[in-house]
Every structure is written in structure tokens, then in C-alpha cells.
């Protein structure tokens, strides 16, 4: 403001004088300029102008220097000339599509997938080695940013000239501000679009990735109005966190969208993205075609809070920011202004105009009393403010802490011991904060989420995961004992239980997983009863239903599984009919369908299952074709082909089953190629090899089964070696060795085959100690025992023949037990009978 005033008072003759003094002052070293101005510049106005220009000069650095319009045209010509039509790694460069501070972006095509990608070559002069090293470390995390509103990072490497490059999903669209202008969006539409962007940023923050460079050109909107965030995590790869490299830091940043702490070279946290998002929102709201620039008081207050230069006074998270926007859109009081009594009253009056007018008289009568209460409140407020400020600081510390910690852990050169130490420290830190923040629900809430976040860090062992989850869950249980109806806490507690269920599943404890899912489901059902329109709760419940159905089926409880999934699906379809949910939900319904088909197949209704699976496969294929870069769809396709294969095989259509298995393998192998370090993809690839191997074993084609099973052994052994608590992988290994043994026997190598079968049995027994209620695993065990018995009973060695009797008896007992509990699949319904016959035959001949 003050500066504007000065400017308006400077005329061109003043400017001459300013110039004279400015030019001389510039020749002085910075610390001597004040003295010079004291001597030579008596006029206050001139002096302030000179000082302001000197300040600008020191900030301007290279502004407009060494760059010109003709040069840029010339450069882009020269560069294009060289690179178009060439290949970088396996990408064919088609054309230039953008150019920025960090380099040039090309449209490029990956030959083997014919996939259109955006390939970004980092310009010379940046520290290539450091960038690539960081890329190698962060690759897995960045690849896990799998969200419809985030353009995925697909690949990276170095060009022939040694420059780093990154490959990203190619997005066609225009920048956020252009989109708003072009479509002449109103304020409401802009805010709704903006909240979608927040959803993506929140998602990334949950994965502990901060964008750091959210600017209009990184926020693209596709023609159908879907926002896509570009360059997530890239800024970090280009910026060193090393303090003595801050110079590089500043050059990569986009100053207009950088937060004050970034400009100061301080630590970056999620609050940094809050700030940049705030700037983007401000810009979008400012440039409306309508030309009205005046924002309502609330919206201004939201922007002010998002853009506060002090981190501790900014929104604590993008979630809070987005939530306030929602409240603003719905006419509710916003948190950014919650402290003002007048504001709250105003909001109340606005919303409840009719009631209020009827109450005006009573209100007037009461006003004396209110004033008294208000004054007393004022005194208490000072106390409260002090306490809140402290809590707020703590809270900021903990949430940015999780991010920093995450980075620290990743940056360690792989030493498990060091990682464990750091994790211990982090947990200690959170524990201290948790103890100190007793009685502050907001802080406790954040801390609990901090524990959840820690539990989701990559490459930590399952025991630590469990500890952290338990702590997070305990906090929510305590919070709920004070506020039993708080929906957010209930949802968070349900989330904790779901995470615990996942943990048990990976551990190979099916019934443990089930009990956690049941808890989670019960909480969410009650949330939905209280708030039928709570969309997030609905989505959360649907995910839990999905897991529940899957676990129940694993336990052989096909009918229950089917019921849960049908209930959830029908509810989802009703919501779609009512127009209450979006595309994404439709996509997830397909996921529910898939579980339904699995149950149907289990129960023997192959016909219905096949019909549904084929229809859904077609739907998913279309989606996948329309979104070739969205790996979610390819993942779905993988699951569908596998599901189809299983059902087709049961139905006796072997050729089609095999084709689907091969298609599923190819899909998963391609996914793994994109993210070779992703343990989930590794496991699924191994699993698919196992499925094909098993198919060939059933078909009596041992020769064809072997290469797949060997591949599976190699992959699963590697995963298991990293964390032996992974019971799930132990179960995979049991199955793989079982099939490998059978395949070897079929190709005439009985000795090796028997070795693998015995190893398999050991694995089965070990895994079953933890997972006694996994019906599918037990039936697989029974099958392996039976095959082993059949081989052993032909042995000339009497000891081995006795062993044959034992395993056949054990097999038969498992089958009887499964039958007695009513958890046999339709396909296995003859098995108890067959096993019993085998056993009695053996006993008859070996009396």
C-alpha cells in the first residue's frame, strides 16, 4: 500500500533524480548504501523510492538478463531440429509440448505399448547424478501415487547426452486458470473443481509426498473437466534437501507460487502445498470473465488463512482447507473465522432468517445477558489462545514430522538396523507428543493419523506396523469414549481396524483379519445409520464389504460372502440411480461384482458368474482402452482375466481358461515392468505364474508347468526373504512347491518332485498354525497331501509307504472336516469321498 502511494507521487523529473542516486548507490557494496543515502539523499520520497528499487534490484537477480524473445524462438527451433523423431531410451520423440524452468517436455511414444507419454528432459546444469539417485530412491513411492487426478510417473533415466529424463502419463487438457476462463466458470463451479484438486493433493500427502511446485501449468483440466496434477514429486527430485545447495533450490522453484518458507530455504511440508493451492485458488477466483473481483468475506478469510506467511497460522492440512471451502459452499460457518462472535451470529442469522425474525424480540431481551457472557469469555480467551497456540505448534510439528521422517528413512542407504533406529526415534517423538497433548482432541487426532502414516511406510517390518496401528487405534478409542458420536473419529477408528485387517491378511491370519473387518464394518454401519448421506463413509464401507466378502470366501463361507457383496452392490446401484455418486463409484461397483462372481463360482453357479464376468470384462476393457495410462484399469483387467480363467476351468472350457491366464500374466508383467520395486506387483506376478503352473499340472502337462512354477519360486522366495512375517507369501510358497513337486513327478523326476512336495507340506503346516481357518488354503493342503500320498504309496521303501498312509489319512481328515463345516466349494464336493476311497484302498493293499 505504502509503496503504491510513493509511486503515484513520483513524476518523470523525480525519476531522473531517483536514477542518478540509484545508479551511484548501486556501485556501493550493499552495507554501505545506507550511509551513502544518508549523505546524498535528503528528500524522503526520493529516498524511499531509491531504497525500494535497490531492494527490488537485489531480489531481481537474473530477471530479464541473458534471455530474449528472439533467442527463445531460435533456441526452441535449434533444439526441436535435433531431437524430434529420435529415440530416448525406448521412447520415440514426437513433438515438443512444453518448456519450463527445468527443461523441455515432449510428446513421446513408448514403442512396445504404443503408449502416449509426456517425456521431460531436465536441462543441463542441474545435478544429474543427484537427481537420478533421488529418483531411484523415490521411484516406488511416486509410482504408488495412483489416483485419477494425478498424472502418474511412469519411468525415468538418462538420455544419450547424460541428461535425466522423466516419463509421465500424457494428459490432454489446458491449465486450471485457462479452463476456468474458457468455460466461464462461476464461483461455485470453480470451488468445486478446486476441491477435486485438493482431493488429489490430500491423497498424495497421505502417501507422504508433497508436491512443492503447484502452479497453474502443473494443474491441468481435461476436456471432460477432470483435473490432473502434473509433476507430483518431481520438484523434490530436482531439489536437494542439502542445505548448502539452496541456490539450486531457488532456481528450480517457481517464485510466484512458492511459499515463504520455500523462498527462505526452510523445510518443506504439507503446509507448503496448502500455500501454493491458496495462490492458485486466488488466481482462479481473480480472473473471472465477469470481472467481479470482490470476494465475499468468508472466501477472503479462507484465502487469508491458506496464504498466511506463518506456517502455524495457515490451515494445518489441505483437508482443513478443502473442508472450509465445502462449508463455505454450503453456507456453514467456516473455521477460518470461527473466533469471531459477530461472524457466527451473522452466519446464523443468514441461514435461519425466518426463525430469527420470530425470535428477534426474545433476542433483544436477552442481549444484556449475552454481553455479560461475552465479556467473561474474553478473559478466558486469552488463556485459551495461549494454550491453543502451543498445541497448534505441536500439531504442525507432528504432521510435517511424518513427512520429513519418511524422507529420512528413504534416504538411508538401505540399512535395516538404521531404519529401525530412526523409526524408533520417530515413534518416541510421537509418543512424547501424544502424552503432552492429552486433553487436546485435535492434536490427538493428528497424532493418531501420524501413527497410521508410520504404519504405511514402505519396507518396514510387520511388527512395527502393528505397534503403530495399535497406538493410533487406542487414541481414537479414547477420543470416542469422550465423544462417542463423533463421526470423524468413528470413521478413523474403522480405518485403523481395516488397516489392522490388512496387516493380518499379509501375516497370513485369515480369522484375525475377519475379526478386524467385522469391527470396522459395524462402526461404519452405525455411521451410515446416523448419516445416510455421508459419501465418504459409504465408500469406506463399500471397501470394507469388499474385503469382508473376500475373506469370508477364503474361509469357505461362500454364501455369507455372496450376501454381503450383494447387499453392498444393490445399495451402490440405488445410489447411482439416485444420481448421488460419480463415475469412480461405478468403477468400484465393478470391483464388487468381481467378488460376487468369485462367490458364485465357489458356490457352483458358473453360468451366472461367467455372464457377469464377461460383461464386466468388456466394461473394464473399454475403460482401460480409454485410459491407457491408468494402471488401475490394467490391474482390474488382470483380476478379471484370472477370475474368468478359474471359472472357465471349473466349467471345463480349458482352452479359453488358458487364454485368459496368459492375458492376465502379460498384464501383470507389464505393470511390474513399470514399477519393478512394487512388492504388490511382484507378488501378483508370482501368483499368476503359480496359477498357470497349477493349470498345466491339472492338465497333466508338467513340461509346460515347470518354467512358470520356477519363476514363481524365485520371485516369492525373494519377497519372503525380506520379511519372514509375511505369512501370505509363505502360503504362496507352499502352493508353488506343491505344484512344482507334482510337475516334476509328471516329467519323470520323482526324486526332485518328492523333495518339493515335502518342502511344500512343511510350509503348509507352518502357515496353517497361524491361519487355521483359511479354508481354501486347507483344501489346497489336502490336495497336496493326497498327491504326495499317491506318489509315496508306490515307493519300494516301506518307510515311505507308511508315510503315504499318514498323509492320505491327514488329507481325508481335512476333506471330512471341511465338508462337516459346510465350507467346501461346489467343485470340491466329491473330494471327501474320493479321499476316503484312496485311503481305504491304500489300507486294503498295505495291510
Amino acid at each position, binding site marked *: 500500500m505504502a509503496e503504491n502511494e510513493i509511486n503515484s507521487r513520483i513524476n518523470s523529473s523525480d525519476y531522473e533524480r531517483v*536514477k542518478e542516486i540509484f545508479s551511484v548507490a548501486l556501485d556501493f557494496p550493499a552495507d554501505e548504501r545506507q550511509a551513502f543515502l544518508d549523505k546524498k539523499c535528503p528528500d524522503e520520497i526520493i529516498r524511499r523510492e531509491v531504497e525500494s528499487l535497490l531492494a*527490488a534490484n537485489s531480489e531481481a537477480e537474473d530477471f530479464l538478463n541473458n534471455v530474449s524473445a528472439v533467442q*527463445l524462438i531460435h533456441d*526452441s527451433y535449434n533444439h526441436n531440429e535435433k531431437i524430434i523423431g529420435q529415440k530416448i531410451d525406448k521412447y520415440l520423440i514426437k513433438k515438443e509440448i512444453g518448456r519450463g524452468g527445468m527443461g523441455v517436455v515432449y510428446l513421446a511414444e513408448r514403442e512396445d505399448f504404443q503408449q502416449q507419454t509426456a517425456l521431460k528432459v531436465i536441462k543441463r546444469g542441474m545435478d544429474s547424478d543427484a537427481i537420478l539417485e533421488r529418483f531411484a530412491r523415490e521411484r516406488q513411492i511416486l509410482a504408488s501415487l495412483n489416483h485419477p487426478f494425478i498424472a502418474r510417473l511412469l519411468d525415468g533415466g538418462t538420455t544419450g547426452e547424460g541428461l535425466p529424463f522423466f516419463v509421465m502419463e500424457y494428459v490432454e487438457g489446458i491449465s486450471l486458470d485457462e479452463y476456468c476462463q474458457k468455460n466461464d466458470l462461476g464461483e461455485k463451479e470453480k470451488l468445486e473443481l478446486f476441491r477435486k484438486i485438493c482431493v488429489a493433493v490430500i491423497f498424495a500427502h497421505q502417501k507422504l509426498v508433497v508436491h512443492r511446485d503447484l502452479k497453474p501449468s502443473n494443474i491441468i483440466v481435461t476436456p471432460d473437466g477432470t483435473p490432473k496434477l502434473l509433476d507430483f514429486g518431481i520438484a523434490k527430485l530436482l531439489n536437494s534437501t542439502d542445505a548448502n545447495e539452496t541456490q539450486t533450490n531457488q532456481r528450480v522453484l517457481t517464485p510466484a507460487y512458492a511459499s515463504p518458507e520455500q523462498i527462505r530455504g526452510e523445510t518443506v511440508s504439507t503446509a507448503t502445498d496448502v500455500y501454493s493451492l491458496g495462490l492458485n485458488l486466488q488466481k482462479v477466483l481473480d480472473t473471472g470473465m465477469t470481472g467481479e473481483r470482490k470476494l465475499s468475506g468468508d472466501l477472503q478469510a479462507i484465502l487469508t488463512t491458506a496464504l498466511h506467511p506463518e506456517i502455524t497460522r495457515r490451515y494445518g492440512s489441505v483437508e482443513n482447507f478443502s473442508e472450509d471451502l465445502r462449508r463455505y459452499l454450503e453456507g456453514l460457518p467456516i473455521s477460518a473465522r470461527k473466533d469471531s462472535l459477530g461472524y457466527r451470529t451473522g452466519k446464523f442469522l443468514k441461514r435461519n432468517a425466518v426463525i430469527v425474525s420470530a425470535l428477534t424480540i426474545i433476542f433483544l431481551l436477552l442481549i444484556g445477558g449475552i454481553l455479560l457472557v461475552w465479556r467473561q469469555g474474553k478473559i478466558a480467551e486469552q488463556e485459551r489462545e495461549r494454550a491453543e497456540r502451543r498445541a497448534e505448534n505441536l500439531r504442525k510439528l507432528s504432521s510435517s514430522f511424518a513427512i520429513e521422517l519418511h524422507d529420512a528413512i528413504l534416504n538411508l542407504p538401505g540399512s535395516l538396523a538404521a531404519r529401525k533406529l530412526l523409526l524408533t526415534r520417530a515413534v518416541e517423538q510421537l509418543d512424547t507428543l501424544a502424552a503432552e497433548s492429552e486433553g487436546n482432541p485435535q492434536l490427538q487426532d493428528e497424532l493418531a493419523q501420524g501413527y497410521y502414516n508410520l504404519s504405511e511406510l514402505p519396507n518396514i517390518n510387520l511388527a512395527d506396523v502393528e505397534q503403530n496401528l495399535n497406538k493410533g487405534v487406542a487414541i481414537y478409542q479414547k477420543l470416542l469414549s469422550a465423544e462417542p458420536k463423533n463421526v470423524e473419529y468413528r470413521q478413523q477408528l474403522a480405518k485403523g481396524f481395516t488397516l489392522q485387517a490388512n496387516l493380518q491378511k499379509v501375516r497370513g491370519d485369515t480369522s484375525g483379519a475377519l475379526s478386524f473387518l467385522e469391527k470396522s464394518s459395524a462402526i461404519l454401519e452405525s455411521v451410515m445409520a446416523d448419516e445416510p448421506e455421508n459419501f465418504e463413509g459409504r465408500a469406506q464401507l463399500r471397501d470394507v464389504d469388499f474385503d469382508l466378502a473376500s475373506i469370508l470366501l477364503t474361509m469357505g463361507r461362500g454364501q455369507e460372502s455372496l450376501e454381503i457383496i450383494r447387499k453392498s452392490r444393490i445399495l451402490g446401484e440405488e445410489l447411482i440411480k439416485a444420481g448421488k455418486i460419480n463415475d469412480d463409484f461405478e468403477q468400484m461397483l465393478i470391483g464388487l461384482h468381481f467378488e460376487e462372481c468369485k462367490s458364485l463360482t465357489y458356490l457352483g453357479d458358473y453360468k451366472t458368474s461367467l455372464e457377469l464376468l464377461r460383461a464386466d470384462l468388456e466394461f473394464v476393457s473399454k475403460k482401460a482402452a480409454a485410459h491407457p495410462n491408468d494402471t488401475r484399469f490394467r490391474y482390474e483387467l488382470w483380476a478379471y482375466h484370472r477370475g474368468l480363467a478359474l471359472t472357465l476351468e471349473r466349467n471345463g472350457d480349458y482352452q479359453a481358461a488358458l487364454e485368459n491366464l496368459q492375458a492376465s500374466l502379460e498384464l501383470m508383467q507389464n505393470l511390474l515392468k513399470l514399477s519393478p520395486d512394487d512388492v504388490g506387483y511382484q507378488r501378483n506376478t508370482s501368483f499368476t505364474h503359480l496359477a498357470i503352473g497349477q493349470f498345466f499340472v491339472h492338465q497333466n502337462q508338467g513340461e509346460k508347468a515347470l518354467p512358470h512354477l520356477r519363476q514363481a519360486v524365485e520371485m516369492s522366495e525373494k519377497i519372503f526373504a525380506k520379511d519372514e512375517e509375511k505369512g501370505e507369501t509363505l502360503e504362496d510358497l507352499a502352493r508353488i512347491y506343491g505344484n512344482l513337486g507334482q510337475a516334476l513327478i509328471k516329467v519323470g523326476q520323482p526324486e526332485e518332485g518328492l523333495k518339493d512336495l515335502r518342502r511344500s507340506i512343511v510350509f503348509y503346516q507352518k502357515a496353517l498354525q497361524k491361519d487355521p481357518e483359511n479354508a481354501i488354503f486347507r483344501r489346497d493342503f489336502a490336495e497336496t497331501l493326497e498327491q504326495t500320498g499317491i506318489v509315496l504309496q508306490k515307493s519300494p521303501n516301506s518307510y515311505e509307504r507308511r508315510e503315504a498312509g499318514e498323509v492320505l489319512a491327514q488329507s481325508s481328515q481335512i476333506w471330512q472336516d471341511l465338508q462337516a463345516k459346510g465350507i467346501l466349494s461346489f467343485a470340491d464336493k466329491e473330494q471327501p469321498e474320493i479321499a476316503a476311497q484312496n485311503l481305504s484302498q491304500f489300507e486294503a493293499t498295505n495291510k
Partner: protein
Amino acid sequence: MANSGEITKLLQQGDAKAFEKLLPIVYNELRQLAGALFRGEFRFNHTLQPTALVHEAYLKLIGDSGKISWQNRAHFFGIAARSMRQILVNYAVARKAEKRGGGQTILALDNVVSFFNTQNIEILELHEALEKLAQMDEKQAEIVELKFFGGLTNEETAEVLKISRSTVKREWEMARSWLYRELKK
């Protein structure tokens, strides 16, 4: 359209009237050259100089008669810089109004405009700030135009404006600071 003789004459004349007549001619030439570059229909003779585009326009309009007087060249540079500014401003306006398309020329300019954006330079804002600066100090605005839009070196700028190199440097430093502050506001 004027032939090379007429253009040379106008350049020699070197006054405001001549400037006005030359501007659209140079503008068109530069615009076409920028487009041709990207269609691959045209190659630079001397690809190493940033001002090659302007030189090329000069050669095309006036011909390589071997007798290019420095005054003519200086005038031409001045006009070319103004043209360049005009081309970019017009393009930025068109882009803002979403009249995109126009093929390859647009792409070349798009590169420039978006590069500036990433450097936090909005061509239109810079243009407006430059107009303001011109009201305070016309010479400084001219220096910015020549150096930034025309790509001229300090020597060339000094030559065009008939001032010393050190003056160019001094004025440039202040103009930069002033513009930076103006754009930051």
C-alpha cells in the same frame, strides 16, 4: 508490398514516419519466418547467433547488397524489436481469448510465451509495465525493448540509440529493477 529499394530508403530516412511504414513489413516478415522455421521450410544461414532471425528478416527484405550501412542496420534492429514485441503481445492476447490454432507459427510462439510464464514473466503484464515505464523514462523502455524483445547486445543497443555502452548498462539495471518491482506488485 515495398521492394528492397524502398525499404532501404525508408531505413535511411529513419524518422517516425518511416518507422511506421516499416513496422508492418518487418512484423510480417518475422512472423512468417518464425512459422517457416517450425515447418522446417527454412533454415538459418548462421545458426549460432540469437539474433539470426532478425538478420534473416533483414536479408530477405533488403537483400545482401554488401552495403548495409550501420545506420540502416540500427534502424532495422529497432523496428524488429518493436515487431517482436508486437508479435508476442498479439499472440498472448489471442491466446488469452482462446483463439488458438493457426498451426506451427503458434507453436513456436507458444513455446516462447510459456517459457516466459515459467520464468514468471507474463508477456502482457510486461508489455503494460513497459508502457508505464515509457511514461517515466522513454529511453529505458526502449533499451528494454531492444535488449529483451530484439535480443540485442549492449553494444548493439548503444549503437541503435546512439548512447554509450555504460549508459546502456546503467539504465538497463534500473529498468530491470523498476519492472521487477512493478510486476511483483
